[in-house]
Structure formats: structure tokens, C-alpha cells
């Protein structure tokens, strides 16, 4: 088994694990963070497959901007809840 296959298998297992955590966890914050983690693992995978341009897009939009956006909306919901 080459190093690339090993790394790919490791990343696949890790992103599956993060996706399962995002589904089963009861805390919204943890769910949002692990959904972002799935994107981060995917972008590392793209980097290993020699596609750095796609990896940058995935990291910036999938794991960065989307996670931030979820927290942004979460903050709004919390604020309305405390009213």
C-alpha cells in the first residue's frame, strides 16, 4: 500500500467520522464545527491528489466561510432567544 493510498484511507475514515459526529451530536456548535472539519479533510484530500486550486476553494468556502456563516446565524438565533 503506497503512502498516498494510506493517507487517502485515513482522510476518508476521518471525514466519515466527522460527518457522523455532525449528525449524532446534540450540540449545534459541535455539529457546525465537525461539518467544517469534513470540508477541511476534503480539501487536504484534494491537495494530496495534486489539485491545489480546488483545495483552496474548498478550504476557503466550504470550511471557512460556511462555518463562519453558521456561527453568524447561530448568534442571531441566540440573541433573539435571550430577548
Amino acid at each position, binding site marked *: 500500500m503506497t503512502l498516498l493510498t494510506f493517507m487517502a484511507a485515513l482522510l476518508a475514515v476521518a471525514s466519515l467520522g466527522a460527518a457522523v459526529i455532525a449528525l449524532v451530536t446534540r450540540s449545534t456548535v459541535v455539529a457546525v464545527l465537525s461539518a467544517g472539519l469534513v470540508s477541511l479533510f476534503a480539501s487536504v484530500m484534494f491537495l494530496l491528489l495534486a489539485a*491545489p*486550486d480546488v*483545495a*483552496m*476553494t474548498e478550504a*476557503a*468556502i466550504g470550511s*471557512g*466561510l460556511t462555518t*463562519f*456563516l453558521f*456561527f*453568524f*446565524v447561530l*448568534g*442571531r438565533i*441566540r*440573541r*433573539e432567544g*435571550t*430577548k
Partner: protein
Amino acid sequence: MNFTTRKAIPLVLLLLLGSVFYALFAGYTPDETLNRSASYYASQTVQDTGAQNVVTAIIVTYRGLDTLGEVTVLFLTAAIVGLVLAHSKAPKGRSGSGFLPSGELLTTGTRMLVPVILLFGAYVFLNGHLTPGGGFQGGAIVASAMLLMLLSDSAERFSHRLISRIESSAGLTYVILGLLGMLFAGGFLDNRILPLGSFGSILSAGAIPLIYALIGLKVGAEFSSILTSLEATEDSQ
């Protein structure tokens, strides 16, 4: 009975999806050589466009029209989000949604990080023709700096007018550059309207750095306008 059917349907769907993916995986054999269009791009990009990064040359020049379409889709998304949220827009003088007051750590960290993030975003889209990255990635990085500013200090709203000015002028210049390519070079969005320059330097590859900077500004402005219109809505009372 009802409960078991409800449980069975997702399982069957997952099984179907899994079998499709398995069929794809089982039938996959890696190509030994590049196919025809890929080998054309790999061998001709440097002399056609002078760009070091082949992906950028494809996105901006060979498939430039598709990129214009993508940017238009993003623009439509921003416009629709703005339109939908305009109903619940906070009146002038009110602070909009805002947040619980942000902590000292976030405020200070933002002040330190935002210029660095903006600079990095500009670096990514200006070096799109040399290194991996480009307008979309750089624009998203710029927008994340804007989001950080919104998170730390919600009272500090950006001017909607400035964002839409940047967005529309970047889009207009992009289309005009494309039309200039039709007039002075090989076709729509041809990058050879400017000299190709020396291979590998920052001012090379014709109009690619210019076009990618415009795309970066446009994408950044579009994402920022989505975020700002989300921020500027008022809570339902």
C-alpha cells in the same frame, strides 16, 4: 408498520446510492495518458497565454465565458438574498440585528487579523497566474475578513453603496475586457490584448492578472453583500 417503512426508505436510498458509487469505483481505471484536450492545455498553455498556472489559464482564458457565467450566478444569488431580506431591513438609524457584545479577545484579534487576511486575499488573486489560487479563492478570503469584522463589531456596517459600486464596476470592466479581446485579439476574453511579458513574473500572461483581480473584487463584494444584508435585517418583534 408505518415506522418500519419510514426506516426502510432511507436505507434503500442509501443502498442505491452506494451501489451507484460502487459501480463507478469498480469501473475506474486510471488513464495512462492525458486525453486530447488535456494534453493540448498542458503543451500549449505556456505559449498561448504565458501563464505559469495551467488551471488559471483554462479558467480565465480558454473557458473564460464559463467563468463569466459563474460570476453571474453568484451575482444573482447575492441579488436574490438582498431582495428577500430587504423586507425585514432595519430602518435607518436603528442598529439592525447586532449581537451580544463581542468579547475583548475577538475585537482585538480582529483588529490585528483583518488587514493581514485582506492582504492575503489580494495576494491570492493577484498571483493567480503564477501559483495555485485565483479570483474565487481570493474573493472568499476577502469576504471572510469582512465577516470577521461583522462578527466583532456589528455596529460597524459597511456602506452598501460602496460594495455595490465595487461589484458593478468590476463586472462591467470584466465584460469590457472580454469585448476588447474580441476587437484586438483572438476572441472574447482573449488575454493577449496586453503583452504576455516574461514568463513567471507578476506582470505577465497578458490580461489574466487584471481579469483575476476583477473577479476577486467581484466575488469578494458579492459574498460581502450577502453577509451585510444578512446582518442588516431586523429581528421580528
